[in-house]
């Protein structure tokens, strides 16, 4: 029983190690991998939105900070390209 548990622990550690190496390569360095896990992964979501779904008409704030508008407002039957991102 102890031998089985030991092998499970070794296998799990090896998997974590390999995953960390993979993340480090993807992110650029071990530090970036740690930061990715800590700061990025919790906010990355696949979401449920699919092609064909009604586009959520979320409310956005205008650059002046006072006005608000809906995402699809003003597109009036034209296609709309949405580019989501941040400055950094």
């Amino acid at each position, binding site marked *: 029983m102890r031998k089985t548990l030991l092998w499970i622990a070794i296998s799990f550690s090896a998997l974590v190690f390999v995953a960390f190496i993979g993340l480090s390569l993807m992110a650029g360095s071990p530090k970036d991998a740690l930061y990715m896990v*800590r700061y990025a992964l919790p906010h*990355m979501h696949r979401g449920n939105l699919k092609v064909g779904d009604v586009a959520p008409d979320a*409310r956005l704030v205008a650059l002046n900070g006072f006005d608000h508008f809906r*995402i699809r407002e003003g597109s009036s039957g034209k*296609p709309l390209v*949405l580019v*989501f991102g*941040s*400055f*950094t």
Partner: protein
Amino acid sequence: MREAHPTDEWQMKSNVKDDVCYAQPKTLEQRLAIANDFTKRFNYPLPFGVDDMSNAANDAYAAWPERLYVIDESGRVAYRGGMGPFKYNPKEVRDWLASRYGEVKHQETKIEEKGLQKSAGKPEEKSQTSK
């Protein structure tokens, strides 16, 4: 939306090199200040909106850290890009638009930033940008 690489979280060397150094906004005013800096610095020509601190638009579109969508004339999602940065693919959107609506006429748009000049295509379709 939330900053991807703020100074108090996962800052990257490229942020320092490009002088794009901000702490993660904790108020809408701080988020708006960054958005205004972005649009002014790049003389950004497209309609622009800011997600409020409830992150409603981000939650609805699973948009963080960056993602592209095309909404069709009926208000439905016609194209959903992959999650950035690894699957953020503007060329795929251009190709998708060209295949669906025909070749898009581009007009040269100068994006100026601190003496650097980049040339970017501006599609005729109205675009909405959310930060």
